């Protein structure tokens, strides 16, 4: 962590950035997001296995933007998220400093090429329980999947923590917040929950970088990340596109190829 503290201190002292978005000491044994503006506080930064929340979610928050040019302590999946945000014109790599830590060596990723190279060298690896969940659901019949999701989603009370924790859910006005027309029922009955979750998955199809922040954020333990993972899997399988790899990539769902194939349109 020494190297990280040193780098953060330098960046703040040189005035290159005004704030470091990183992980710091939290409640009990948790870590929490911290926003460090003073060089002398750089040693508050923490870097270990507990750093799992996707901090890229803060990059576009108005309150954080007000703090000035940021440096962000990035896990591999945060780098992916940043590339995806750049490809969606939500960020410019010239306006942020991305700090990656490998074996206590801190590197600055400051342009698109270095971000892409880092992302390509650090593929997302699902933890074993996620691999198992994906496999279990793939083996279910459609009726079993219906029952599985109805049961899981029955606990949803629409706190929208999944949306809030997702760095790619950045719309200022979400579809679900619109009431003319009311596409998504406000109520968290089975229909309202289904509508919300399929919309979330559809809107993240080909965009979800599979960081798992939504699942971690869900206060009632619904494995909602599986939905957006599946949506991205479909996009990769059908259209060969993967998010978070190229800063100039087209968005899968707002582009097309004449050769796209299917078998169900008569």
């Amino acid at each position, binding site marked *: 962590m020494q190297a990280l503290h040193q780098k953060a201190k330098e960046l703040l002292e040189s005035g290159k950035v005004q704030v470091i978005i990183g992980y710091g000491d*939290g*409640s*009990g044994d*948790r*870590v*929490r*997001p*911290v*926003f460090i503006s003073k060089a002398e506080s750089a040693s508050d930064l923490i870097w270990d296995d507990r750093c799992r*929340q996707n901090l890229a*979610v*803060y990059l576009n*928050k*108005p*309150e*954080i933007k007000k703090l000035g040019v940021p440096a962000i302590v990035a896990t591999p999946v945060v780098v992916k998220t940043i590339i995806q945000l750049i490809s969606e014109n939500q960020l410019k790599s010239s306006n942020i400093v991305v700090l990656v830590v490998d074996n206590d060596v801190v590197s600055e990723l400051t342009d698109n090429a270095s971000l892409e190279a880092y992302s390509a060298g650090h593929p997302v690896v699902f933890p074993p329980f996620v691999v198992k969940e994906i496999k279990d659901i793939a083996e279910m019949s459609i009726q079993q999947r219906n029952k599985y999701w109805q049961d*899981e989603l029955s*606990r949803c*009370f*629409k*706190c*929208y*923590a999944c*949306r*809030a*924790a997702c760095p790619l859910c950045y719309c200022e006005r979400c579809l679900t*917040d619109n009431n003319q027309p009311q596409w998504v*029922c*406000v*109520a*968290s*009955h089975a229909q*309202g929950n289904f509508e919300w979750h399929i919309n979330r998955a559809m809107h993240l199809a080909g965009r979800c970088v599979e960081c798992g*922040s939504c699942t*971690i*954020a869900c*206060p*009632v*333990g*619904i*494995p909602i990340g599986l939905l957006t993972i599946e949506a991205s899997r479909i996009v990769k399988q059908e259209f060969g596109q993967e998010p978070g790899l190229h800063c100039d990539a087209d968005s899968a769902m707002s582009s097309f190829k004449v050769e796209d194939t299917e078998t169900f349109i008569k």
Partner: protein
Amino acid sequence: MSMQQRVIQHENLLKFLGEIISSGKQLYAPQKKAEKTYFLPASDVHSIVFDYIQTAESPKELLFPKTERMLSYEQVDGKLKMIDHAEGEIFPERVLFGSHPCDAVALKTLTDFFRHDVPDAFTQKRQDSLTVISVSCIKADDNCFCTSVGTSPGDTEGSDILLTPIGNAKYYVEVMTEKGQSLFAAHEKYFENSDIISKDKYLTKMSEVFSSSEVTARLSKAFDHPIWSDASLRCLGCGACAYVCPVCSCFDIQDEGTDKKGDRLRCWDSCGFSLFTLHTSGHNPRKNQSDRWRQRVMHKFSYMPERYELLGCVGCGRCSRACPADMNIKEQLKEITEKIEG
């Protein structure tokens, strides 16, 4: 109500709970689901868990469901049929088992809140048909702070019956209300007589980290304090804290349906959402997340005590456990007493 002292053996407690189920009452008890504990309808007493600090969700759903049908209409043969569910519906007899004293206090706060002005028939009827059997806390974690908000690990407030584990698979039983008494009387054979036991030594020890009246006093001068924007920087603006909170009671009325048939629903809402206060004009009086975080704290610790003489927090710590960004309410309240001048 004169108090009755009894003890009950663990195996008799299971039989007692089993008899509640077989008598046709709905029993809600802590059960595990996907690594977390919830109050769920129990059909088998052996699925009930006893070794837990706090359920993921509060029991408020028993008084104030996340989605509640208030009114329905239907066109039948060209005639409009209206149903007021508060009038027509018979609310089922329910027993909540395993709530901790903080939750029982919260249920009482909710009941009082919903009748402070025009009494709300729904919560009232649900409360009338609910009997609460709480279990005192013999352990707690860092997120718990009941003693700082005027309650305690063995508080009897809001419980109809309170059980305190006293070791050797035994519970000390305090019957507190008429509802508790009638449930107790129907299953008396499972209970044994006992002298008054001082339960304090069995309870978890929890020191007071701040004084809630102190918080209330400081808040009256703190509306423009910089503490709100500093504290809420990492807040993501979701409603997880409000929805797991046993006291939070904001709601949104939604009409769903067509010209033929429809419902008026009461749905949970949260002051953490920017949409909560967004006006039709586009103006939002709580524009920033810091405004909304301040509202949450102010409502619980300033507005509720001032207006209803109720405290909007029971120290259960669920919001801190649920928060994806680790907003810790206990820590923040302590900070308020330290950083804001009295």
